[in-house]
């Protein structure tokens, strides 16, 4: 089965979703990210969804789950690059992604998780 690649960047993990994911692919990403957080001692996770044309309730729940699990594993998750039309649709759908930190782009997303990353370095990671 196809997998979404996960890149390690210092103590952060970077995921760029560039395909229209079917549900099993989204579930696989959730599982892969969780194990990579532990393997890599990651303190931050950045998920770029700028290529996604829609976020439906399944993908929304996946993003929520990733944020919740990574929080428990002491990593911060930021979702970046959501298209304006996607944001409008998500709110009307009834999903507010309350548990997920969002930023407009990768630069701002990195700023959001930088404190975590620096703290990670101090720990000698």
């Amino acid at each position: 089965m196809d997998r979404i690649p996960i890149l390690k960047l210092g103590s952060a993990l970077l995921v760029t979703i560039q395909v229209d994911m079917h549900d099993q692919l989204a579930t696989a990403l959730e599982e892969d990210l969780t194990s990579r957080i532990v393997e890599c001692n990651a303190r931050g996770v950045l998920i770029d969804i700028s290529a996604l044309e829609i976020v439906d309730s399944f993908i929304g729940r996946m993003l929520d789950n990733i944020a919740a699990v990574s929080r428990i594993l002491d990593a911060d998750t930021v979702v970046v690059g959501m298209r304006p039309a996607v944001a409008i649709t998500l709110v009307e759908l009834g999903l507010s992604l309350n548990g997920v930190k969002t930023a407009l782009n990768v630069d701002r997303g990195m700023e959001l998780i930088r404190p975590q990353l620096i703290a990670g370095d101090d720990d000698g990671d």
Partner: protein
Amino acid sequence: MTEQLAILSSEDVVRVRQRVRTLAVEAGLSLVDQTKIVTAASELARNTLDYGGGGHVVAEQLAVPRRGVRLTFVDNGPGIRNIDEALRDGFTTGGGLGLGLGGAKRLSSEFSIDSAPGQGTRIMIARWK
């Protein structure tokens, strides 16, 4: 113009999304309206697969009385016992968030549902330009 697409796997759900996007673009819907109907189609196609045991969607591009896209999702699954309850946000008989049906209704210009226990489910949505 009318076409029928099978919904028998989660790859089919992706194909439905992509086809609906093309139809919405051709019908001249705005980007936000395209996104709304594609998202609604994704929710309903998943329901057809997960709760209806698979089925199909009839996709129509309409010119009269207005330009738009109409989608009818059909399955021969167990049907819905209480439609009002099924439309309520947060209600689910599966593992989902319970936003699919009510969300799809909010995202559409027109919505109708025809279902009864043992009779399958037929859901029509439309988005007009």
